Each structure stands twice: as structure tokens, then as C-alpha cells.
């Protein structure tokens, strides 16, 4: 029971932390709870489908189907985070202002929220499919009783959910002045970490070169599989011994998202300057 609890906890942890961050990052956007539930539900259903299709997926691309599938899932997740951060760069001030008024929510965030739901679904799917496979394997292959396995799984799930909730509660305590900068930065680093994992998958499938392996190795200081290492791995993509290509993907993702965000923000500011003086003074009152 303990073994299955630990594995399910580790799989759940990643999804739970990400959902905790996303739930916080979308505060003040109308209808976010519904979209988050849709995301989780689709992710859970998707987990079972992907788990059932494991053999088929694995056979693609001369045995590298799984890597390519994971890389595609990670790529979409990175794009969704980029979309969210760019959207936030033009709506963050509005959200921070409105969050002070109880019950007021930004209404035009539906498209943004559908991107968030996709991100949540893909995160749940990645970890969920492994959990389903593991539990299914235990149920068919081992001497562990079904009851003890399910209890363990439920405990692991509960543990993960608690950590995710703590993440959310912790983030919500950050003063509004810094709030969206903090969640935006967390999501930026999360995207960079996912991108680095995507590089790892493509290297494993031998689609791209690893360049230098490893670029550095600090596993004697902070191993990736230690508790701190694993949490940092989930949050910012920490790896004790990354390859050169992973670091390229990591830095490249940060550069592209930061660059696009700055570009979109500058365009919007130029548009605002062309508006009437009255609208301009309203906006500056809002952002101050």
C-alpha cells in the first residue's frame, strides 16, 4: 500500500502543483473554476485513453512513439503557458485592480481560459496515464490486494492534492501588487522546464543531438530525485545534470516568451496613445 501511495503521490504532485499555480494565476477571471474542472476531467479521461493506447503509441516511429507523443504534449503545454502570459501582460493591471473589488471579474477571458483548461488537461494526462498504467500493472501482476492498492492510490492522490492546495493558498497570500508578477514568473519558468523536458524526450528518441552531456553535474550538491530536487524539477525544471540541448531549449523558451510579451505590450501601449485623452487618463489611473 505504501509503495503505491508513494508512486501515485509523486505522479500527482506535479499536476497538483501546476494546477495550484494556474488556479492562483487566473484569479479574477470570470468562470475559471468551471474551466479548471473541465481541464481536470478531460485530463483524467485522457489518462485512461492514453494508458489503454500505450502499446499502440509505443510502436510508432520505430519504438520512439512515446517520446514523440510526450514531446508533442509538452510543446502544446508550453504554447498554452506562453499564450496565458502574453494575455496577462495586457490584462494583469485590470485584474489586479478588479481583484480589490469583491465579486468583480474580467468577462473577456474565455478564450484565455480555454487555453488554461487545455494546459491543465495535458498536465493531468501526462502524470495520470502513468498512474493508470502503474495501478493496472499492480492489479494484474502482483500479490498486492486490490483494496490495499486502491487505498494507497487514494492516499497518494490526497497527498498530492494537499500540496497543490497549499501552493494555491500560499500564492494567494502574496500582496496584489506583486501577485501577477510572481505567478507570471512561476509560469514562465514552468514553461521553460517543460521545454527542457521536451528536448530530453527528443534526444531520447534520437531526433535531436544532446550536444554536451551533461553540460554540468551538481548531483552531489542537489540530486534531482531528492525531495527539494523533485519539487524544483516540477516548478522550474531543475535537473542536476542537464544536457546542452536542454539548456538551449530552456533559455530559448524564456527568451521567446519574454520577447513576445514585451512586443504585445508595446503594441498595446501604442494603440492606447492613439486613443482619446479621456480614455488615456482612465487607463493610467487603472495601472497606477
Amino acid at each position, binding site marked *: 500500500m505504501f*509503495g503505491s501511495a508513494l*508512486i501515485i503521490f509523486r505522479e500527482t504532485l506535479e499536476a497538483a502543483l501546476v494546477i495550484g499555480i494556474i488556479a492562483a494565476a487566473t484569479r479574477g477571471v470570470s468562470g475559471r473554476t468551471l474551466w479548471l474542472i473541465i481541464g481536470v476531467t478531460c485530463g483524467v479521461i485522457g489518462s485512461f485513453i492514453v494508458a489503454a493506447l*500505450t*502499446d499502440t503509441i*509505443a510502436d510508432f516511429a*520505430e*519504438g*520512439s512513439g*512515446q*517520446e514523440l507523443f510526450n514531446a508533442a504534449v509538452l510543446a502544446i503545454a508550453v504554447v498554452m503557458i506562453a499564450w496565458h502570459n502574453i494575455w496577462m501582460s495586457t490584462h494583469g493591471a485590470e485584474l489586479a485592480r478588479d481583484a480589490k473589488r469583491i465579486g468583480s471579474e474580467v468577462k473577456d477571458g474565455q478564450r484565455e481560459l480555454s487555453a488554461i483548461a487545455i494546459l491543465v488537461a495535458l498536465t493531468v494526462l501526462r502524470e495520470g496515464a*502513468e498512474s493508470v*498504467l*502503474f495501478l*493496472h*500493472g*499492480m492489479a*494484474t*501482476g*502482483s500479490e498486492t490486494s486490490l483494496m490495499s492498492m486502491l487505498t494507497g492510490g487514494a492516499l497518494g492522490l490526497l497527498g498530492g492534492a494537499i500540496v497543490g492546495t497549499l501552493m494555491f493558498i500560499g500564492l494567494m497570500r502574496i500582496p496584489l501588487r506583486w501577485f501577477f508578477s510572481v505567478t507570471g514568473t512561476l509560469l514562465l519558468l514552468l514553461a521553460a522546464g517543460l521545454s527542457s523536458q521536451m528536448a*530530453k524526450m527528443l*534526444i*531520447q*528518441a*534520437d531526433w535531436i543531438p*544532446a550536444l554536451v*552531456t*551533461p553540460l554540468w553535474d551538481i*548531483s552531489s550538491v542537489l*540530486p*534531482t*530525485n531528492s525531495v527539494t530536487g523533485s519539487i524544483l524539477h516540477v516548478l522550474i525544471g531543475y*535537473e*542536476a*545534470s*542537464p*544536457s546542452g540541448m536542454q539548456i538551449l531549449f530552456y533559455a530559448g523558451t524564456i527568451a521567446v516568451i519574454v520577447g513576445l510579451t514585451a512586443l504585445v505590450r508595446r503594441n498595446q501601449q501604442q494603440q492606447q496613445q492613439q486613443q482619446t485623452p479621456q480614455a488615456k487618463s482612465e487607463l493610467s489611473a487603472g495601472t497606477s
Partner: protein
Amino acid sequence: MCQKKVKLIIDNQDASPEEFESHELNREKIIPAKSKGVVYIGPLKAGKYPFVGEFNQATARGVVIAE
């Protein structure tokens, strides 16, 4: 230092799926029941690179040695 890339073929012969995992090698891959999986590793610095089957960590252990 092993300059070459090596293709590992992991053969999961029993009826339950397994995850080949190694933080040292920077690799993880699910191997479905009764099937083979391919993982490319290297070039590697000389050294020992342990790996485990994540779903059966107590017994499924091994090590890749690069010379």
C-alpha cells in the same frame, strides 16, 4: 569517455508495464507489458549510471558502466 551513442533495447517480458528510469542517464520511458522499448544514450563520461524500473524499485535495478 564513451564517445558513441548507444541504443538500449529494454525487453519487458512479464505481463505488467514498467517504467525504465535513470536520473543519472537522464532517461525515462514506459515499457508496456510483454514488449520492447528503445532508448538512446550517450555519449557518456566514464562512470556508473544506475537505472531502476520505477514500478518495481525494490528488485528492478541495474547499472550502465561507461569506460
